[in-house]
């Protein structure tokens, strides 16, 4: 599916701002199931944008301005091709989770982080679910994913990022970030490496997906927020992506920006300003489905590690 995405964020300040410095993480990544076709960032007032790839493999666009301004707008325009992500086939034995090489490779996706910490209630729930799911890690992850859907009710605006997962669980409702963080915490509490994914979802409503039949999709642009889901590492299979908010596997309508230990590693926009008294931010995402003219240049499967890609690029540069 070829999608055209316009991510726009506007800061409106109370008063004149002397300086503003920001980092944007809004660029769809290229991986086994997704290919970025084009990407462009513009700002108003105009600022020089410097791009780099961060530790997690996410593109970062840094920009700032010292021209006095009372509002700042950043626009990121992307075109991306997506494909379905296949479900893991076959079993994965839980004993493999504790193999030293597997643990070492996924160490940072097993730790507690500020947004994905867990208390006794999460430990208890996760243990209960996985025990019922039997001796298969894929089954564990699906059970935990369903648990999130059964436990949390989607309610816009009831939480802000920063509410601990345990509290979200106690309240029983949240937004997509909370669903993703709870899923991550549940997985990690059972020793299943899990990571938080930031991205976009092509739909009219974050919680409603159109029927699977793609021919009936609306062709006009839809407005959504950035979305969040999670990926769990299945021994012998790789990363398994699930969208707990919509209780679905991650498919062609999901556009991945990047992943990290939690929200803080892939926060779409962060920055500081000085001079004004306060600010309000309005993010706004518009996604439009495009007809695919030529065959999408999606790379062949079998290259899963972004780390490897990064190393290759570095090798090239070091030889210059």
């Amino acid at each position, binding site marked *: 599916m070829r999608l055209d995405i316009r991510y726009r964020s506007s800061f409106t300040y109370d008063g004149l701002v002397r*300086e503003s*410095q*920001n*980092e944007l993480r809004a660029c769809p990544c290229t991986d086994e199931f997704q290919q970025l076709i084009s990407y462009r960032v513009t700002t108003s007032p105009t*600022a*020089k944008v*410097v791009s*780099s*790839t*961060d*530790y*997690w493999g996410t593109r970062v666009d*840094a920009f*700032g301005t*010292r021209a006095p301004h009372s509002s700042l707008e950043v626009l990121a325009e992307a075109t991306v091709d997506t494909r379905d992500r296949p479900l893991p086939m076959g079993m994965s034995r839980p004993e493999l989770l504790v193999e030293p090489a597997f*643990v*070492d*490779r996924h*160490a*940072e996706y097993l*730790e507690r982080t500020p947004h994905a910490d867990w208390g006794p209630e999460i430990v208890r729930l996760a243990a209960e679910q996985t025990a019922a799911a039997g001796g298969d890690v894929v089954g564990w992850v699906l059970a935990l994913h369903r648990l999130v859907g059964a436990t949390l009710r989607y309610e816009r605006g009831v939480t802000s990022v920063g509410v601990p997962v345990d509290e979200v669980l106690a309240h029983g409702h949240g937004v997509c970030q909370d669903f993703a963080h709870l899923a991550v915490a549940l997985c990690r509490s059972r020793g299943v490496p899990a990571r938080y994914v930031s991205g976009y979802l092509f739909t009219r409503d974050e919680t409603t997906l159109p029927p699977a039949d793609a021919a009936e999709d609306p062709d006009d642009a839809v407005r959504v927020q950035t979305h969040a889901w999670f990926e769990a590492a299945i021994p012998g299979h790789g990363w398994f992506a699930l969208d707990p908010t919509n209780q679905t596997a991650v498919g062609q309508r999901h556009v991945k920006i990047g992943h990290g230990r939690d929200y803080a*590693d892939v926060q779409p926009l*962060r*920055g*500081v300003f*000085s001079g004004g008294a306060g600010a309000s931010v309005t993010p706004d995402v518009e996604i439009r489905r495009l007809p695919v003219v030529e065959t999408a240049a999606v790379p062949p499967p079998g290259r899963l590690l972004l780390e490897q890609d990064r*190393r290759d690029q*570095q*090798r090239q540069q070091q030889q210059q």
Partner: protein
Amino acid sequence: MPTVAAGLFDDYDPETFFDEVFSGPGEVREHYTGLLDRLRRFSAEDLARRERRRDAAFRSQGITFTVYEEDEGIERTFPMDLLPRVITAAEWEVIESGLVQRVTALNRFLDDLYVGERAAVHDGVIPWWLVTSSDGFSREAFGIPVPLGARCLVAGIDLVRDAEGRFCVLEDNLRSPSGISYVVENRVAMTRLLPNVFTDAPVRPVDHYGRSLLGALSRVAPPAAGDTPTVVVLTPGVFNSAYFEHVFLAAHMGVELVEGRDLVVDDHVLYMRTTRGLKRVDVVYRRIDDSFLDPVTFRPDSTLGVPGLMAAARSGNVTICNAVGNGVADDKAVYAYVPQMIEYYLGERPILPNVDTYLLWEPEQLEFVLANLDRLVIKPVAEAGGYGITIGPKATEAELEACRADILADPRNWIAQEVVSLSRHPTLIDDHLEGRHIDLRPFVLTSDTVEVIPGGLTRVAMRKGSLVVNSSQGGGSKDTWVLAARPTGEAEGDTDAAAATPLLEVTGDVEVTS
């Protein structure tokens, strides 16, 4: 001349420790004989008078540090003992080559992690989880190259001498090692207070530190900076415990001392505000922590940093020294792997050994340590300044229980080491000499070459029997002499007190003895 001072040494008992001056009761090591002969000419009263002058001079120059634990922080002078520590040319040769080797390997490791292929991880030299679980590992530093790979441009390596007199590495300080100002100021003070003791002693100079540091910083400037890059010292401000040193370093390099609010980033280029407008800055020698450097990338509440600094560094427009993320290499658990790093990166045997260290996530080692807590030293992996250390043999039962609970709560956060019976050095206590435990922190500068400043900071545990030498724990210091290998006449620099040029003037109310 009064002869009272002869008793100064006669009553001294080296006990069973490795004593730097005495090889046995009354037996003075050869490299101390000249110094002791000259000191014998002073009476206890002479020395006491000089101690008073020393205290007045240090106080009036503000050569102080802040002790934080005593309620709200107290400014203290860093007491310098009047009896210098002497290191022979032969001993120094071993130390120097060992330090060059170690710091070279540490720089290679950091470059490998942050801009390299992580070869040491792939080849199994160090576990990846240990790297990622280190508080000092900075994902934000990923992909930012440092010219010449000089990530630890300034390193302070803490050495101790064990019961056999062998120098071992106790810990590495690769973020903002402090204390070099005391090294230089102690020498200035000694040449003024006791100029005669330097007679005929080929003591290698230390007063070139500012020039050496500025040279190293200039060599890691971005290529676009040209021949005379602009260097600044970035300080957290006057409330920092080492503020004196920040002032000192800027003065000795002849560069601006700035705070974050004096700097600004425009189009990914760093500038400092001056009375004549903005001036481009090429190299920042920062003495603030990584997490405060840039509120865009790190803690958004930091008021010490500069918004946009990291993007400027990433763009290659400014070099930050020491590099961001060095803390992963001076993590006390990663420390245990430094000997293997030396072998891996350099293909050499480590010249300076580590102290035996137990890693508490290994079940057998944990079990051993918990059974032997009362005879081991337990340290938190990421703290500096001697905070949080439990010394088993000196701890109460309650302290050991608390320590045990801490370890079990997070084994990765602690290491255990054998107690090193640190060497002792006679130290002037009131009117006589007593043995006090000492260590040595040499300073190592890396740019296109690796330079070790002769000597370093000898820290003294001033409390009788104490093994904790950290200045933040009430330690003192000694002027540290490295003797030149050459005969006196050909020795480099300020071996003669009269020729020494103090860089900070002693204020008028202090007598200068000649």
